[in-house]
C-alpha cells in the first residue's frame, strides 16, 4: 500500500532543479526525491510519486490541488523542469522531402523543427481532441485541442489524424 499524501503533511524544498528535499511533519525527512507523474499523459496533476535514488516511491501525492499553495508551487516547478512536452500552438511548415516529414511548429517553448519518421504511428489522436506526437528521436509534443488550431495548421495536421 503506497503512502498517499493529501493536504498539508510535508514541506518540500527544491534541490538541484528537479529534486525535492522532503520533510514530513512527523519528523521523517528524505533528501532529493524525484517527483514522477504516474499519468503523464492522461492526468498530469494527480498521482505524483516521489521516488528515492533507488527508484522506490516514498510517497504519492494523490492530487496536487490538495497541497498548500507554497508546496504545490514547489512541486510544480520541479515537474516543469523535468517534463518537457511542448504544446504546439500552430504548424508553420510540413515538408515531405525525400519521404521524411519535417514538421516546423510554434510551441509554448519556441519554434522547433522535428522529424516524423512514420506519421501513422507517430501521431496519436485522443478522444478529447488532444493529439500526442512523438518524433524520430522520441521527443514528445502535444496539441492541446486540435479543433482550436488555426485553419492552416488544421489543414496540415488533419490527414495524419
Amino acid at each position, binding site marked *: 500500500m503506497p503512502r498517499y499524501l493529501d493536504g498539508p503533511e510535508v514541506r518540500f524544498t527544491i534541490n*538541484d532543479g528537479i529534486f525535492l528535499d522532503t520533510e514530513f511533519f512527523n519528523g521523517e525527512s528524505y533528501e532529493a526525491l524525484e517527483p514522477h507523474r504516474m499519468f503523464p499523459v492522461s492526468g498530469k496533476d494527480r498521482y505524483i510519486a516521489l521516488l528515492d535514488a533507488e527508484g522506490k516511491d516514498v510517497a504519492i501525492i494523490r492530487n496536487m490541488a490538495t497541497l498548500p499553495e507554497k508546496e504545490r508551487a514547489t512541486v510544480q516547478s520541479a515537474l516543469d523542469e523535468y*517534463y518537457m512536452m*511542448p504544446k504546439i500552438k500552430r504548424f508553420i511548415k510540413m515538408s515531405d522531402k*525525400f519521404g521524411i516529414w519535417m514538421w516546423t511548429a510554434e510551441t509554448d*517553448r*519556441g519554434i522547433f523543427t522535428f522529424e516524423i519518421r512514420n506519421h501513422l504511428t507517430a501521431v496519436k489522436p485522443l478522444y478529447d481532441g488532444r493529439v500526442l506526437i512523438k518524433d524520430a528521436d522520441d521527443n514528445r509534443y502535444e496539441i492541446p485541442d486540435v479543433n482550436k488550431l488555426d485553419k492552416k495548421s488544421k489543414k496540415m495536421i*488533419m*490527414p495524419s489524424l
Partner: protein
Amino acid sequence: MNVITNHPIPEKFRVLAETVMKGQTPLFALVGDLDLSGRYNDSVMFFTRDTIFAFDEKHREKYIAVKIEALREVHVKRMYGNALFKAVTVDNKRLNLLRFTYSAADIGDAAALYVNGVIEHGFNDDLVEMVHATYNKQRSFCPRCGRKLPNPEAECINCASKKNLFSKFTRYIVPQKWKLLLCVILSIITTIMSLVPPYITRIMVDDVIPSASQGVEIAMQRLISVLVTLICVYIVQYTVSALRGYILRYTGDQIVINLKKDIYAKAQYLPLSFYDKTSTGSVINRVNSDTGTIQNFVLRISQEAVVKFFLLIGLAVIMFSMDWKLTLFSFVPIPLVILTGKFFGTRIAPKYRRLWRKSSAISTLLADTIPGVRVVKAFTNEKETTDKFSRYCDDWMKEDRKAAVTANIFPNIMTFLVTCGSVIIYAVGGSQIITGSGDLTLGMLVSFVSYASMFYDPVNFFANLSDSYQNTLASAEKILDILDAEPEHDFGKGKVPERLQGRIEFRNVNFSFDRSKKVLSNINLVIEPGDIVGIVGTTGSGKSTLINLIMRYYDNYEGDILIDGINIKDIDMSYYRSQIGFVQQDPQMFRDTVFNNIAYGTPNAHVEQVMYAAEVANAHPFITKLPDAYDTMLGERGVGLSGGERQRVSIARAVMKNPNILIFDEATAAVDSETEHLIQAAIERLIRGRTTLMIAHRLSTLRKANKIIVVDKGEIIEFGPPEELLAKKGKYYKLVQIQSMSDKLISQKQAENFE
C-alpha cells in the same frame, strides 16, 4: 573553427567561443537545442583536453568554463523529452552545463563518458577516438537527403523509393508484360469496334431510311445488310471483350499475389523493433486490402489509360473530319471538367488517408480481441469490447460519410458538365439543320452526339485518375513501409563457423528500446562453453532483454557481443539462430499437428527423430495418450494442450535443433509442481554439455547452475558460482533467503495441516 560536432556550431556563440578559448582547438563540440530554462534555443559545449566550455544565454556571461580536474563526475540526466548535462565538482557543487532534447542525448552520453574517462585515468587518445566513433555513427546520414541511416553503409531507402514510388512496383508488372500487351491490343480492337455503331447509325438515318423512296425492297435489303454488319461488329466486340476480361483478371491476380507473397515474406524478416512500433492489425490490413488497391491502379494505368488515350485521339480525328466547328463547340466544357477533377483530387486525398487509419484501427482491434477472447470472457469484458468496436466502426463510418459526400458530388458535377456539352452540340447542330446553313445532315448530327458523348468518357477518366492515384498513393505508402523497412541483416551472409563452442562474451553492452530509458547498461561478462548459467533478478530488471540481445532480436545496442570470440553481428543470422535452442515462457504453437509443431524449424525431420525429441522432452508419454497421438491437430495458439504440455512440446522443438546454446526463459513459471518436475527432468537431460542460460524466478530450478548472474536495474550486480555469491551475502544471498523462507513457511503450513 573546424571541429567535430553533431550540428553546425550556432552562429551567435561562434565569436564569443573563439575569444574565450583563445585559439585552443576543441576536440569536439556538443550542440544542444534547448537553453537551460528548457526553451528551444541554441547552446553548445566544447571539450578540450582539460576544460569544458559551455555556452548558453542563461549562463552568467553567456558561458561557463570548467576545468575537468575540478570535477568529480559528469552525467547526462535523462528527463522526460529532454536531458541535462550535469557536473558535480570536487567540492560537491552541482552544475547544469547544457540542456538538449533526446535528439542529442546519445552524443551527450559519449561526451560524458569522455569527461569521466579523463577524470578517472587522465587524458588519452582512446577516449577521443571513442567519442569520434560515436559521432561518426550518429552522422551516418544519407548524403542526398540527410536522413539518418540505420548504419553507415546502409542504402537510403527514402532516396531509392522516392525517385519514383511506382518504379518499386514495376518488377511485379514486368513478368506479365506480354499478357498485358495482348490485353492492350484486344482493347484497341474493342475500342475500334465501339467506334463503328455511331457510323452505322449515320448511314441508317442518312442513306437507308430515306432510300425507301427508291422502293421498299431496296431499302429493306440495305437495312438488312447494315444490321448484319452491326451484329457482326457487336459479336466481335463482346467476344474480344470477354477474352480480354479473362486474361486481365488472371494477370491482375498474378501481380497482386506476388506482391502479397513478398510483403508477407518481408514481414517475416523484419526485426522485432518494427513490430514494437507497428500493430499486427495494420500489417494484416496491408497484406489484404492495400495490395488490392495497387492491383486496381496498375491495371488502370497499364490498360485503361492506354486504351482511353487511343480512343481520345481516334475520336478527335473522327469528329474533326466530320465537322470541325461543332467539334470545337463540344470542347467547351473540357477545361471545367479538368479543373473540377483537379480540385476533387486535393479534397479527397486527405479523406482517404484518414479513412485508412480508421479502418486500420478496426483491424487492429480485431486482431487484438478475437485471439484474446478468453481474457475478454474471463473479465466479462464483452460489453466494453463491443462498445469499443462499435465506436471504432462509427468513427470509420463518420469518416466514410465525409468521403462519400466528396466522392459523389464531384463526379456528378463532371457528368453534368459533360451533358452540357451534348446540349451545346444539339443547339448548334440542330439550328444548322433547321436553317439549312452548312452541310450537316440529321444522321451526322445523331452520330456526332454519340461520338461526343464517347469523347467525354476518356476525358473524365483522365480527370478522375488523380482520385485513384491518391488512393493508391496512400496504399503504396503503407506497403512500401514494409517492403522498404530495414530487414534483419545478415541472412545468408557473414561467417559460418564450423561449430559453436558456446563461449558467450558481452563487452561494454548498453541498450535502450527507445532513447528515453536505458534498459541495459555496461554489461560485461564471459560465459564459458558448457556453463549452466542462471539469470536472476526482479521483474523488469532486464533479464529477458539480455536474452533478446543474444538472440539478435535487437541489433541497435552499443558495445559488442561475441560468441567464441566472433562478433555475433558478423555471423550468418540463420546459421546463428539455428545454433540456439530457445524455450520461451509462453510457447507459441501453430495451427498444425503435434508432429509438425515439434518438427517446426527442422524440415524433413525423420519420424523417429521427432519421437526421440519428444521423449527427451518428456512429451512423448502424454502425446501417445492422445487419440490422434502425433497427428493431433492443435487449435490456434495450441488450444487442446495444457500449459505444461505446450512447454514440453516447445522443449522437444529445441531438442530437434540439437543446439549448442540453450536458453530457457522462465520455462517452468506457469506450471504446477508435478509438471515442473517433468519439465525440469527434461531440461536436465537436454543441457548436458551445452552452454545453457536459464532465467528463473524459482531459484530451486537453478540447482544445476554453476554460475549465477544477478541483474538489477539493467546492470549486472553479481556474477559467479552460486557458492561464492552465497558466501558474499549480497543480493543473491538475500533472494535465496527470502525464497527458502517462504518454502519453509509452506512446508510448515503443510505439516500443520497434516497433523
